[in-house]
């Protein structure tokens, strides 16, 4: 019988549930043009013109909107692409 290995505890918050999905939010930056933001939503997420416009208006009027959700890697990729397009995106655990 081999000696028990010392296993490092994974460095995660014990309250964090890894199975919970992440959501990606886009926040209002007054510099970004409304038409451009709607265009980026359509391009990155394949939204219809109507949906892209609605979400863009939510950003404009409410200061933020949720554009996608899913596992961490997907959320990270979406945030990266939004940042690449100059939009102010963050990710957080879905409640």
């Amino acid at each position, binding site marked *: 019988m081999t000696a028990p290995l010392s296993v490092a505890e994974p460095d995660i918050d014990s309250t964090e549930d890894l199975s919970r999905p992440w959501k990606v939010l886009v926040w209002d930056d007054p510099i970004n043009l409304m038409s451009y933001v709607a265009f980026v939503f359509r391009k990155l997420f394949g939204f219809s013109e109507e949906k892209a416009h609605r979400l863009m208006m939510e950003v404009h009027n409410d200061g933020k909107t949720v554009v996608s959700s899913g596992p961490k890697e997907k959320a990270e990729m979406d945030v990266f692409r939004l940042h*690449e397009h100059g939009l102010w995106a963050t*990710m957080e655990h879905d409640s």
Partner: protein
Amino acid sequence: MSDVHPSWPFLPEEAGVRVNLQEHEQEVLENLIVDLRQLLMSDSHDALRRLKPPAHPDNEEAEAAYRELIDDDMLRARLELLDIVDAGIAGATLSEDDVAAWMQGLNMIRLVLGERLELDGADLDSHDLPDGPATFLYEWTGELLEFLVRAASATGS
């Protein structure tokens, strides 16, 4: 967009969007790109603040991991898209991907100029921008971007 005016900076055509900048406009845009490329390479934190929004504003550790993961790729992607803009300034017909690169490039320039002008929502709502070259360039690149979005929508890209 049935009435396309031949003086517009971007013209929707069957093959894509044609860049239609006047010579002096080409020169100004070239200079803006040179400036932006230098800023990106120097990684000047303050000037690029709006180009590097946090993905995890409330979690320093997660934010550091995100930066570590993406910073190099982001810089490379941004320099590449500036090359695409540079290559098209004199009057190229832009593919769908080129159009996206142009939009991102123009938007980056605006974000840097807006940061330099220290613009916030109240300034923009009141249209109370300071007189000067930075304001002129900020508004001009905004017009270009608006025209480009319209032209791209008209070609269905």
